């Protein structure tokens, strides 16, 4: 589904260049649940951003469903992100002034779906993640775990092929983290959605099918 071939990512700030990724060769198949581990600054989040088309490789090739991403326009990349990818961020990134249902609705706003259908799907997915009674709550009125569940709901409402989760349990205590992990496992088994999860927690990584390890931007085995 996703293939990276000799991908490098270099960040330039003035005269300073930082090699965030170097020579990454990676294949993610449909339905895989993999985790990405490594120390801070090893390039884990950068890898996720490149896979999610939020960032572009400096060198190398990225293929998404056999399409070479470099050849795609910004509009086409946005369309792929909308239809095929769901993001879960460490700090949730819910819009604090919107109720949950409006937050979860965001991916569907950029598709041709009626308002009624959008709300129906949002209610269903919020029920699925256990927040059916909180749809009109604002993020500030929820616990960290509930906010992350809402973020998961937002990530899956559009039935993406791929979920990219950047330290989804990083801001949660262990109990909440376990709950989130259980939810991701359930999502994976129910819908066979591919999930790539960045984590520091070896316990959680062991629950996935494969672990990709990074160190200083390079894959280590």
């Amino acid at each position, binding site marked *: 589904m996703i293939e990276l071939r000799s991908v490098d990512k270099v960040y330039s700030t003035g005269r300073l260049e930082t090699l965030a990724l170097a020579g990454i060769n990676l294949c993610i198949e449909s339905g895989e649940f993999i985790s990405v581990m490594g120390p801070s600054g090893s390039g884990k989040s950068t890898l996720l*951003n490149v896979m*999610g088309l*939020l*960032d572009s490789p400096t060198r190398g090739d990225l293929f998404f469903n056999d399409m070479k991403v470099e050849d795609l326009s*910004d*509009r086409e990349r*946005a*369309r792929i*992100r*909308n*239809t095929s990818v*769901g*993001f879960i*961020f460490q700090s949730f*990134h819910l*819009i604090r*002034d919107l109720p949950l249902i409006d937050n979860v609705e*965001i*991916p569907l*706003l*950029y*598709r041709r779906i009626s308002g009624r259908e959008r709300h129906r799907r949002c209610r269903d997915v919020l029920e699925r993640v256990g927040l059916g009674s909180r749809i009109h709550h604002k993020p500030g009125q929820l616990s960290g775990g509930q906010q992350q569940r809402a973020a998961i709901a*937002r990530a899956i409402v*559009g039935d993406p092929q791929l979920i990219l989760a950047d330290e989804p349990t990083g801001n949660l205590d262990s109990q909440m983290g376990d709950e989130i992990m259980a939810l991701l496992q359930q999502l994976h088994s129910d819908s066979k959605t591919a999930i790539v999860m960045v984590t520091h927690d070896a316990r959680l990584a062991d629950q996935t099918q494969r672990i990709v390890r990074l160190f200083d931007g390079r894959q280590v085995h």
Partner: protein
Amino acid sequence: MFMRRRFMTFVNLFGITFTLVILFMLVALLDHVFGNASPEANQNRTLGLYRANLVREDDAGGVAALPGYGLLDRYGRDLPAVEAFSISTLFRRAISYVEGRRIESYIKYTDAAFWDVLSFEFIEGKPFSRGEVRDSLRYAVINEATRERFFGSNTALGKPITIDTEVFVVMGVVRNVSMLRIVPFADVWLPITTLHDYYRPDELAGLNFGLILARSPQDFDIIRRAFSARIASADMSGNAPYDKVIAVPETKFDTMARLVFTQGKSVASKTPHLILMIVLSGIVFMILPSINLINLNVSRILERSDEIGVRKAFGASSASLVLQFLFENLLLSIIGGIVALCISLLVLQGISDMGIIPYAEFQFNYRILLYMILITVTFGLLSGLYPAWRMAHMEPIDALRGRVT
């Protein structure tokens, strides 16, 4: 979305409203002076002779004034394609005394065709006729304010009215005319033949207006060419040391344009220049508050960078976000426009009520509404385009990380 940062929204709204109030009032003023309204309801087929310049070939000095009676009478009458031609004087003050009370009025002398060219609203009686003007009969048409001053709540028809020690009989009462409409404006209209020494055949520059009601606007060129041919061979013998007279049948706006750009010394039309100057002035006036709003809007966008990053991450294209932001800004501008409209109407009503400009009643019409909508939308786009562009070029990953500047 406006309730999220209420103070910023309020500041935005205040800036928009303040700017639009001033622009709306200028539009209302311009419409009041130049727009079609009684008694100048036929302006689409009316030309006027509003200026006359006497010049020397060597360009050493000249006279700039209104047309003289001689110029209008000798060269303005019987032009082709003309339905009616009128000569009238500029208004002047006159004094009357009623039961010991001193009353000041503005009086104007006109011919009978004056009432054909213009469309006054008579609330009593009728205007004086050609025969009555020819016979110098001492009839007067007064406005309702003068009726009130002289006769109270009683009818004025057939009653005598003394103007500057001369007695006239009221034969008609019309609605008040705003002083800003300087051509038809007066309190009392009198037959021009009752003015001592009105007939001055050699006078090319003076204190008169000529009004030409064309059969149709398509005849304007015919009229202008015919007049231009006559005036080119004008007899200047009684107007030494001047060699040439410049006068053009044109609209009031055209006259103003020629005055602004050439002091009336050239016949070349400067109307497009004046329109451009007004439009550019409007835009320049909007630029400063627009820049202020742009700064505010950019700050709003930067504060919302997280939201923008999320939307982009989940598939919002730059175009859809630009449209979203422009729509928000336009909506704010429209709200500001509505508030500005209400404030403008109140201020204009206040100006009307205070009588700062005699008889000025600023009316709201579809023309003004159209211009106001145009100004509001322009302002909304002007203040929203650059911030929207900034938003469009924000990388989602930078927006999510709060790394935007």
